[in-house]
């Protein structure tokens, strides 16, 4: 029981991170209907920025953890959204209005490009930082097992929840949210009604990148190690999460992320760890067979 609880905590932490990255996929899909394959690598870039920041802070002897975290988050979000903006501008905007697959291939190219840029400029070696947040709370002590939730795990889950709420509020209550939703539904009509579509799409990419940056900082804090390859696996998992939850739906992305985190940790905990990815994809297929638009996706009515 205690063991299951611990695995639940592990799964939630992992799932929260997938969810944060998945939101980026889902938003971009919602607005321009493309899979932004480079999103995982944007996340990777943000993790590198975070490592540089933490190292700078360590050199500057900043000892206040909340202050350091805030600083790293802000800096990382700023630069990462610049990357999000640039990627859209260079690789996707010229392709708007062409076939559905063109931006996908461009995105795959962008992903390879970003990975190798980071490898060249930052080196192929893994980048570690000393533990930022140590310790945690002991939740439950049984004779042979202690359930523990680390401060960093707690931080990740809380941040995710807060961001999720803030984000949903922004989409439903602000002018940008309205423009974003209007572009999702009908870009031409939105443009006719005076919505600056280009700007809205750019902003969407920047927001997605900023969320990925939050995930990047969290990964850096939690695992303490990043390398130029982390974007790939995280990207695939997050994309799976977005689809599982119903691509285009924000709560769906979060739900998908959490589910995949939980499936992974419980499958690995009780069944065969080596087949956990098979389980993830298997469950995805099953869900899609029963609900072709994902768990919370708007069911696509066949318009004849």
């Amino acid at each position, binding site marked *: 029981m205690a063991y299951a609880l611990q695995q639940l905590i592990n799964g939630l932490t992992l799932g929260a991170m997938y969810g944060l990255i998945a939101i980026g996929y889902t938003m971009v899909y919602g607005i321009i209907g493309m899979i932004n394959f480079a999103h995982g690598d944007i996340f990777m870039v943000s993790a590198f920025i975070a490592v540089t920041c933490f190292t700078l802070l360590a050199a500057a002897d900043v000892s206040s953890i909340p202050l350091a975290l805030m600083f790293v988050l802000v800096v990382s979000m700023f630069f990462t959204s610049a990357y999000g903006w640039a990627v859209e501008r260079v690789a996707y905007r010229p392709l708007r209005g062409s076939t559905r697959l063109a931006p996908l291939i461009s995105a795959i190219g962008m992903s390879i490009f970003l990975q190798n840029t980071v490898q060249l400029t930052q080196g192929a070696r893994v980048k570690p930082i000393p533990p930022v947040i140590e310790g945690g709370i002991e939740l439950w002590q049984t004779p*042979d097992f202690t359930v523990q939730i680390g401060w960093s795990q707690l931080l990740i889950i809380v941040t995710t929840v807060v961001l999720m709420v803030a984000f949903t509020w922004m989409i439903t209550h602000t002018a940008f949210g309205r423009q974003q939703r209007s572009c999702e539904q009908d870009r031409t009509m939105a443009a006719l009604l005076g919505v600056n579509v280009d700007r809205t799409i750019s902003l969407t990419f920047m927001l997605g990148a900023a969320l990925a940056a939050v995930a990047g900082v969290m990964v850096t804090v939690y695992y303490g190690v990043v390398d130029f390859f982390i974007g790939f696996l995280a990207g695939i998992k997050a994309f799976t999460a977005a689809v599982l939850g119903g691509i285009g739906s924000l709560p769906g992305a979060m739900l998908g992320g959490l589910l995949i985190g939980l499936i992974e940790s419980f499958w690995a905990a009780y069944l065969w760890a080596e087949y956990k990815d098979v389980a993830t994809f298997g469950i995805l297929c099953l869900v899609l067979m029963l609900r072709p638009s994902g768990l919370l996706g708007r069911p696509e009515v066949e318009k004849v």
Partner: protein
Amino acid sequence: MNKTLLAAALAAVGLAAQPALAELPVAIAGPMSGQYASAGDQIRKGAEMAIADINARGGVLGEKLVLEVGDDACDPKQAVSVANTMVNKEIVFMHGHWCSSSTIPASDVYYEADIPMATVSTNPQVTERGLENIFRIMGRDDQQGMVAGTYLADHFKGKKIAVVDDKSAYGKGLADEIAKAMTARGIEPALRESITAGEKDYSGLVTKLKRDGVEVMAYGGYHTEVALILRQAQQAGLDLTVMGGDTMTNSELVTAAGPAADKVLFTFSPDPRKNASAAPVVEKFRAAKIEPEGYVLYAYAAMQLFEQAATAAGSTDYDALQKAMREGSFDTVIGNLSFDAKGDQKAPGFVVYQWQGGQYDYAR
């Protein structure tokens, strides 16, 4: 690292330029890019230094050596492509590849093209296929696993030992051998697991280890994952000792795992840096700000092997060279090298090491 992009590009173009006549092209191949690029980097540094030294001594048989570098990124398909490139460049000797899964398909190409090769790949299959051009200057996984498993059985009696691998050819081979050696000594692994290399989250595994009261984990795989597992174990309040293979020589482990790296034991050939004969070379590397860790000295030794075998044979023709390598005995920075019929090093001997404050040394 501080080279400017432009300068690096020019240097790369320069490296690839065709050698002039009266130069002997020799090659190294390995993962110069990709996940394991740091190993490739070590090989390149070792080989460059060796070639500089050999050429300073007047080259081999009066000809200067030039180095060709092949990048296979540990991808078998690219490895074959690299091998073909090297054949075209008419290299007379190859040191590589690094990943066993690259070495195996590439070696067929070298075999057909009559090119002798010295490799550090540890998978038994490398020398088990009857190719007479392969020489392994490193031990084999089965020997390595044997040493590690026996050490675990002897030193951690009564403690729970888990055996984990990363599903790579290398990692799984090693972990299987460790488990076998332990069982032979009457100790059953408390847990046998596989993880996926390249992920970041191993908290599930750590929790599992914690539940089963595991104190020691034998691990077949690369150092990156070990660093992550150690960090996450510490976070979860699990005091874990790790036993790994030769890949743990990488100092990245220490950077990434922090103080927890002191809990890592691993098997590796006797440290060449400790050889009295290697002292001047080690000094030289350190003077050039290169720590001759991991595969650096092996690459150096591979070039020495070629130099001495070619000198002994008086020629760089395949048959003569191959015969000289097979029959001779060579003094290199990694000690005395001689090979058995399969091409395995005769006295590899693995030793158990332990990291200690950023350095590794023989374990007590």
